[in-house]
């Protein structure tokens, strides 16, 4: 486990991306192929199936540490991380065994082998593992069971390191890491090195994400080079049909086919295969439904007939990435749209679920600015501006695509502190402090306390209670996990705040359950708004 422990310690001790990439490359050079695959898996939210419940782990850890369970629970509450709590309450004794005899995949196999064992055997094996590992290793071992390695390593970073290590394009690696693969039965060769394109039918492409326009549209040049597309307020999705099989991915790289049976019919119609980039959108009577409606479907695995009828969903198609089995991302946007348009009439059924997202004609930027004022009525967030000759890029890139959102300005921020409310809401956590990313660090920049429903406040309060990592009087520091979209009327410089900015009238616009903390906005994004 030494290489992995060294890697983890190195990653954990720096906030700098370059140093992290270096550490990952070093690991890839030293570790076994199977350990490589597992590290890629662990840092892209894949973990071994859980074979021991956390409640058993808590019980055994308390017993091992010679403390009552309630004290373990109180301590866990303060620490905020179960794997860490367990690792640290168990006294460090001199190790009798050389834990390096077993590598990362070895320990994972050890954990997976517990699956069908009786509780007594599980206990014996886990306690024995704790005895063989030092504190740092014990922590990692526990993390393998509980999941959630939070060391500021994104899939993007792993991709970068792998590209460096294998001398391949980042795009190629990114595509290979997407989709469904099981670290337990794929080799490094198959996953990364082999030349043949994997035949995993469900594999999506990395999304091309746009930045918010940070100047005037005039700066983009002549209107004729650009296309304006309404920016719909749903969840970005990728609809795939390959060899007649249909898959739907959400932007969080989650396979959500089962949640949206609306698209099942596409497997049985007669048309070329495709991969469409679009927006999953609640849609009824030719109008989008408010995002809050769609949200009711996001959290559920299976949907009831009633939900299906109340909140029907469509895919607003923006772009075509693959046509008839061919990756066409390097064709121009105009060409891709033409193919998309040609493809969509094939779907024409009495009740099509894939709608071509409208483009807006405009002769001048002024004209477009006027149209943009209709955004709210149309239940859109403004425009996406796309260059006609742009190819489809990977990840968030500047230059060819821009978000031109309507006011108020918004920012996606991570909640880091919570405080109880007053009066009617005294038993709920309603006052929050939010942060955005500055490199790998979160800096707080705004407080807000209105905008959620009582139900949502209740849900957030539950989260706060379970995820407190520190307390300062009435204020609780919580795990930075929940992302909220804040709306605000203005932004000013401020020397009073660590972030250097202050927002005017910030309020919670909505809870972005579809976003992970890593996907929240950056301080640079806010500083750019300041410039306007």
């Amino acid at each position, binding site marked *: 486990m030494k290489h992995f422990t060294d890697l983890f310690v190195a990653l954990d*001790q720096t906030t700098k991306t370059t140093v992290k990439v270096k550490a990952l490359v070093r690991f890839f050079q030293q570790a076994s192929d199977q350990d490589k695959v597992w590290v890629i898996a662990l840092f892209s939210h894949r973990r071994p199936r859980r074979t021991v419940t956390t409640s058993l782990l808590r019980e055994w850890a308390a017993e091992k540490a010679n403390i009552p369970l309630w004290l*373990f629970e*109180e*301590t866990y509450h303060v620490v905020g991380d179960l794997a860490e709590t367990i690792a640290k309450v168990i006294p460090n004794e001199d190790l009798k065994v050389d834990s390096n005899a077993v590598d990362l995949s070895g320990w994972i196999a050890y954990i997976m082998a517990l699956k069908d064992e009786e509780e007594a055997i599980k206990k014996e094996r886990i306690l024995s593992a704790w005895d063989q590992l030092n504190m740092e290793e014990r922590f990692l071992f526990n993390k393998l069971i509980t999941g959630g390695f939070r060391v500021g390593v994104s899939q993007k970073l792993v991709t970068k390191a792998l590209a460096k290590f294998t001398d391949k394009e980042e795009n190629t690696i990114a595509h290979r890491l997407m989709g469904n693969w099981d670290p337990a039965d794929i080799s490094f060769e198959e996953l990364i090195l082999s030349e043949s394109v994997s035949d995993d039918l469900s594999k999506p492409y990395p999304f091309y994400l746009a930045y918010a326009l940070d100047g005037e549209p005039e700066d983009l040049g002549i209107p004729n080079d650009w296309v304006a597309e309404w920016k719909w307020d749903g969840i970005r999705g990728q609809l795939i049909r390959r060899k007649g099989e249909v898959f739907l991915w959400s932007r969080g790289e989650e396979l959500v086919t089962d949640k949206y049976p609306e698209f099942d019919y596409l497997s049985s119609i007669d048309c070329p295969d495709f991969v469409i980039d679009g927006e999953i959108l609640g849609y009824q009577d030719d109008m989008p439904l408010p995002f809050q409606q769609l949200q009711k479907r996001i959290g559920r695995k299976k949907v009831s007939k009633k939900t299906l009828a109340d909140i029907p969903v469509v895919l607003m198609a923006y772009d075509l990435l693959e046509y008839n089995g061919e990756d066409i991302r390097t064709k121009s946007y105009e060409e891709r749209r033409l193919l998309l348009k040609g493809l969509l009439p094939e779907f024409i059924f009495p009740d099509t679920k894939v709608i071509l997202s409208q483009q807006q004609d405009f002769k001048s930027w002024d004209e477009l600015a006027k149209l943009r004022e209709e955004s709210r009525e149309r239940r859109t967030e403004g425009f996406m501006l796309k260059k006609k000759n742009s190819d489809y890029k990977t990840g968030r890139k500047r230059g060819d695509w821009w978000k031109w959102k309507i006011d108020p300005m918004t920012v996606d921020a991570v909640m880091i502190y919570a405080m109880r409310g007053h009066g009617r809401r005294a038993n709920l956590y309603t006052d929050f402090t939010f942060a955005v990313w500055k490199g790998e660090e979160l800096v707080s920049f705004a407080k807000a306390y209105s905008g959620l429903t009582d139900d949502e406040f209740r849900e957030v309060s539950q989260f706060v209670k379970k995820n407190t990592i520190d307390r*300062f009087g009435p204020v609780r520091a919580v795990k930075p996990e929940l992302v909220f979209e804040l709306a605000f009327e203005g932004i000013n410089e401020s020397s009073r705040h660590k972030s250097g900015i202050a927002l005017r009238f910030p309020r919670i616009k909505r809870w972005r359950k579809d976003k992970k903390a890593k996907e929240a906005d950056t301080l640079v994004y806010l500083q750019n708004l300041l410039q306007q």
Partner: protein
Amino acid sequence: MSLIESKEKGLYCKQADVYIDPWKPVDKAIITHGHSDHSRKGHKAYACVHSSKAIIRHRLGPINVTSYAYGDSFTVNGVQFSFHPAGHIIGSAQIRVEYKGEVWVITGDYKLDDDGISEAYEQLQCHSFITESTFGLPVYNWPNQNEVYDDINNWWSENAEENKTSLLTAYSLGKAQRILHHLDVDIGPIYCHGAIANMNDALIEAGVKLPYYEKVTPELKPDDFKNALVLAPPAATGSAWMKRFKQVSIGVASGWMALRGARRRRGADRGFILSDHADWKGLNMAIKGTGAENIYPTHGYTSIFSKWLVAEGYNAQPIETAFIGESLEVETETP
């Protein structure tokens, strides 16, 4: 009525009309040690150990202070008070209070490990023990301090090789000197932030020996710091003072670094687990060693810790201090 009570102004001995570490102005104050949450200004008369006197004077200016040697005692209205090493920082003392055969001990802050620079902890026996419990949770178990000094020196020398400044934050009184004492002077130059340098001067005057270091002054250029280790108080990292360093790695030396979350929130590159407080094991050992029946935890996780002690068979009850848990700074500055 008990010999020592917790009053609005602090811990109070009515029989002698004396306060211990009071946080509001009183006539007679016995001070356990020089940290600002224990030695406050405004009292008419102060009593402390000799090595603490210079520190308190440095912090509070001209005050009326009588100092004693460790082990010395004095009696007020039949109550005998004496000072005993607490091992927390230079000049830190536990206060032993005896009246008609009943003995109380107030620890102030303490640690059991001998840090090589503070007077080493003395295990006392008593009936009632008022103990700090800043780190009274079973996850706080300190690593061997020599390993931590090695880690600090290794970190420094790795940075020095890359011409990077190593900025280490540590509390100005106690932690800073303890680290200075264990730095490997062969790695490169050592600098101290003004606040620490001034504290050092007061201590050197009182007879403490420290290795050679320089004070950070405005004339110094970024290049002067390129392979240096700079000691600074925690508050300095967020200030304009930092602008003088070019390439810098920030380390934090604190018991709070035992938890990953605490280090990440501090934005430190490296956390070194080094505390001047007793860890979980230390607290439990000290308590057991006193033979006391009544335990009163103060500072930190007092209610959880008391509940644990009750389960262990003690009479335990938390003493709430007036000033904890008020602000976000508490964590950074708990001395």
